[in-house]
């Protein structure tokens, strides 16, 4: 008859009470793990979107570029620079960019754009914009095309109308707009055929440009059309040019998708009269953890000490995103705290019930000679068994859930999706994979149980045997 066995027996003693305790622990852990996983998953998606599609983890740039990202704060490219950067441990790749604000027009529509002069080969190691090349665009007059067999139903027309002008990188993504309204396979094929877009990414010595899909939609531009670019060049010169759009990319980050124009580096330098000048070198890393980021940026600073260049991390460059994440993280944590608070009182309530029900029994045990500390330990074991079972069940259900939604992120639709996109985020809700946060939820709940244990522990250690027996 070990104490563990007594504890085990007590576990089954009051089944309803045990069920309440275990299930509140179970739901707390499940809820906390899933919620936290969603939060962390969306943070890392936000970061990944921003960094990988555009910012880069680290940038080497002119010291004044951060405050005033104009062509005046550029620097001369020197072949030794990428070599120096690549020698720093954990640096995976480096790419040169020239970046400037420009006006882009087509017909009588004009829009401010982000002109990014890139080295298309080197860029593959970074944002790899080539992967976003658009293969399908739903044309605005698709629903007017006659001779459709079978004819479009009103519902299909409505969906096509709602997505008119939208571009897709592959047929699967396009087909997804009919998720809520299954469509005839033959009809889908017709739609795909009518929406097909030719297009390619730019090469190093290209004379054309690639633009993002929302921008193309806004300017009413298709592959093969011309784009007029107007800007202020280096040292106040006038910059202008006409470029053929050779491809369209759909950037997952909606903010970028609204205003991106990719140009080969040299073409961009010519356009803005910034010959051999760069805005920054973007650096990609093997290990993107916060610690590595600090270590590598310090390494870069040391390696570049002889130059006048500055090293900035994505966090330095992206204060807004960092703050957004931080404040969301804070409120997420506050919510978890509240959850644990509620769970604590749930557990505490059952513990109080348990103690009062068993006061007489405790009195008898101490009277016949059980040391209070031993009694306190058996009760601790009891509570820990419940806690561990609750936590284990929470993990058992929670881990497959987060794994599943990590691999198959939830894609938001409708208003929610629009809201996310308006804020500049991809309308995806991926979950973070297993991580220390999972362990912490379990530890937090067990901590709540230990906190609740203070009550029986005190009751037992201060037990007055005579009055306990009397009851």
């Amino acid at each position, binding site marked *: *008859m070990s104490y563990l066995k*007594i504890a085990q*027996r*007590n576990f*089954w*003693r009051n089944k309803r009470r045990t069920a309440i305790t275990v299930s509140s622990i179970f739901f707390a852990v499940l809820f906390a793990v899933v919620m936290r996983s969603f939060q962390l998953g969306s943070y890392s998606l936000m970061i990944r979107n921003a960094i990988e599609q555009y910012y880069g983890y680290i940038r080497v740039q002119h010291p004044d570029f951060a405050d005033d990202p104009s062509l005046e704060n550029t620097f001369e490219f020197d072949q030794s620079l990428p070599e120096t950067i690549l020698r720093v441990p954990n640096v995976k790749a480096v790419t040169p960019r020239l970046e400037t604000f420009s006006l882009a027009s087509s017909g009588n529509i004009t829009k401010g754009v982000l002109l990014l002069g890139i080295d298309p080969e080197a860029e593959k190691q970074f944002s790899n914009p080539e992967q976003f090349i658009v293969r399908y665009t739903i044309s605005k007059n698709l629903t007017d095309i006659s001779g459709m067999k079978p004819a479009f139903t009103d519902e299909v027309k409505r969906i096509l109308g709602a997505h008119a002008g939208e571009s897709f990188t592959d047929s699967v993504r396009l087909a997804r707009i009919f998720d809520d309204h299954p469509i005839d396979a033959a009809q889908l094929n017709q739609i795909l055929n009518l929406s097909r877009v030719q297009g390619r990414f730019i090469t190093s010595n290209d004379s054309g440009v690639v633009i993002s899909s929302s921008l193309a939609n806004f300017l009413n531009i298709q592959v093969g059309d011309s784009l007029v670019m107007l800007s202020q060049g280096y040292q106040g010169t006038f910059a202008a040019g006409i470029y053929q759009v050779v491809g369209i990319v759909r950037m997952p980050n909606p903010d970028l998708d609204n205003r991106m124009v990719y140009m080969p580096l040299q073409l961009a330098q010519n356009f803005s009269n910034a010959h051999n000048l760069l805005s920054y070198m973007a650096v990609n890393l093997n290990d993107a953890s916060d610690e590595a980021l600090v270590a590598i940026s310090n390494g870069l600073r040391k390696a570049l000490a002889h130059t006048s260049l500055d090293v900035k991390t994505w966090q330095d460059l992206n204060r807004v995103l960092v703050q957004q994440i931080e404040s969301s993280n804070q409120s997420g944590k506050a919510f978890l705290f509240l959850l644990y608070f509620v769970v604590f009182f749930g557990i505490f309530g059952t513990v109080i019930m348990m103690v009062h029900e068993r006061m*007489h*029994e405790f009195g*008898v*045990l*101490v*009277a*016949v*000679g*059980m*040391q*209070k*500390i*031993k009694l306190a330990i058996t009760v601790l074991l009891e509570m820990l068994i419940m806690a561990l079972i609750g936590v284990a069940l929470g993990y058992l259900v929670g881990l497959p859930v987060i794994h599943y939604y990590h691999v198959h992120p939830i894609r938001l639709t409708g208003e929610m999706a629009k809201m996310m996109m308006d804020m500049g985020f991809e309308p995806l809700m991926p979950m973070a994979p297993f991580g220390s946060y999972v362990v912490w939820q379990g530890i937090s709940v067990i901590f709540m149980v230990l906190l609740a244990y203070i009550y029986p522990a005190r009751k037992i250690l201060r037990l007055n*045997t*005579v009055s306990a*027996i009397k009851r």
Partner: protein
Amino acid sequence: MAIIEVVNVDKIYNDSEVKVTALSNINLTIEKGEFTAIVGPSGSGKTTLLNLLGGLDSPTNGKIRVGDVWLNELKGSKLIDFRLRNIGFVFQSYNLIPVLTAGENVELIMQLQGVSARVRKQVAADMLVKVGLADRFASRPAKLSGGQQQRVAVARALASKPQFILADEPTANLDGKSAENLLQIMEHLNRNEGVTFIFSTHDQRVMNRARRVILLEDGRIKSDTLQ
């Protein structure tokens, strides 16, 4: 030497607004092998006296010796350990741990004493035989009648090999037949194995079986008779 010696003991409850003198100037010795009843009207101090003899509570004045130990010299865990090794207890009701079987309840006290598992099991079975419950080793208390539960409590007290067993109204919650049965077992143990019993009771029939009757009234010993 007497196994219990009570010297000039008063017990005054002072915790509420009114001061209650539960026991007043008690002097008493109990010898090994006694079968003694403490009787008296409700509120006369029977439970209080048994609690003091058992080291569950301490006197306001005076002192109590059990064996060769003055109880006032023991505190906290030492006192608990002293009870474990020297005193058997049977309470009025709900003596047993509901999640343990009858046998395990008896074993538990020996486990607390550090007796090995093999010996424990054997002794627990023997003790249940002594109280006529040989076949109820594996029964949970809820499956036993009130009288059977009290007999398991006696078996548990016996298993700890105490100097004496204190029983506060052990028959109060039992019907006549069960009470009679319990008493017979106690008497038998007393007569044949020399187990010392000190029990309190209201019940005239129980009283009649005692060999010594100590009558309390208003916290004083009114009479102390051998019969």
